[in-house]
């Protein structure tokens, strides 16, 4: 029973590192990478549990996550690059036109 426990702990740690990265780093790309890491941490949980619960549903989900992640990266990077085209900065805080 303990194996699954460590796996979950591992993915939690990975997820936290990703989250911390998002909050700490100011470079849009690095933030984007951290998001990918968070997604992967979730995938790991899915697979661990699907093995634990002996059902493939978890893995199907990982499949879907991958699809989404791929699309996301494509568009995300497109946006970041076009922002860079507009204003030569990758610093997230400079981009705050949608101010309340």
């Amino acid at each position, binding site marked *: 029973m303990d194996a699954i*426990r460590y796996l979950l702990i591992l993915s939690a*740690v990975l997820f936290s590192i990703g989250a911390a990265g998002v*909050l*700490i780093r100011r470079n849009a*790309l690095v933030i984007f990478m951290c998001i990918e890491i968070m997604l992967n941490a979730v995938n790991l949980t899915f697979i661990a549990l699907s093995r634990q619960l002996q059902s493939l549903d978890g*893995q199907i989900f990982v499949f879907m996550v*991958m*699809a989404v992640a791929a699309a996301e990266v494509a568009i995300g990077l497109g946006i970041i*690059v076009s922002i860079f085209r507009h204003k030569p900065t990758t610093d997230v805080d400079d981009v705050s036109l949608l101010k309340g």
Partner: protein
Amino acid sequence: MTATPLETVLFIAFGAVAIAGALSVILARHAVYSALGMLVNFVALAAMYIMLSAEFLGIAQLIVYAGAIVVLFLFALMLIGGRRPAEQGRLTGGLAAAGSALVVVFLAEIAYLVMRLTGTAGAKGTVTPDVIAQLGHIQLLGATLLLEYILPFELASVLLLVGIVGAVMLARARRQSRQE
């Protein structure tokens, strides 16, 4: 599901590598190093998937994540590049400090929850590791994917199509802006 000694050792190794990769992503001075860190992380995870008898996903992970996404990042880095001077300092004032503190709290909560986890929540399914070994992971995965989950599968493809169209549109927008 008792883990054989070998598995535990491998598991610990790959775990450590994954964490190291993740850490390097957030701590690297230059964006390129963090991209490489991400690559390492992905590869470690792929290995772990395979250990957890999800071979196809492991390979898919390698191809999709490690291959495509990391390369995309590198492309983006090329375009934007590190021309800018090094990061002005990772921590931006109170926001970052508060953020990291919160993350630690979050992690503690999750850990506490996991520790308190008793018994399996849902009913067990029928697909045991040896069934996978016997029938082959891809066949099983393909069957369930195209039988039970056909709708999500199609939707995923639509999503990817949208992704592609979006990326193309963004690219076109970029060409026009360069022409003015």
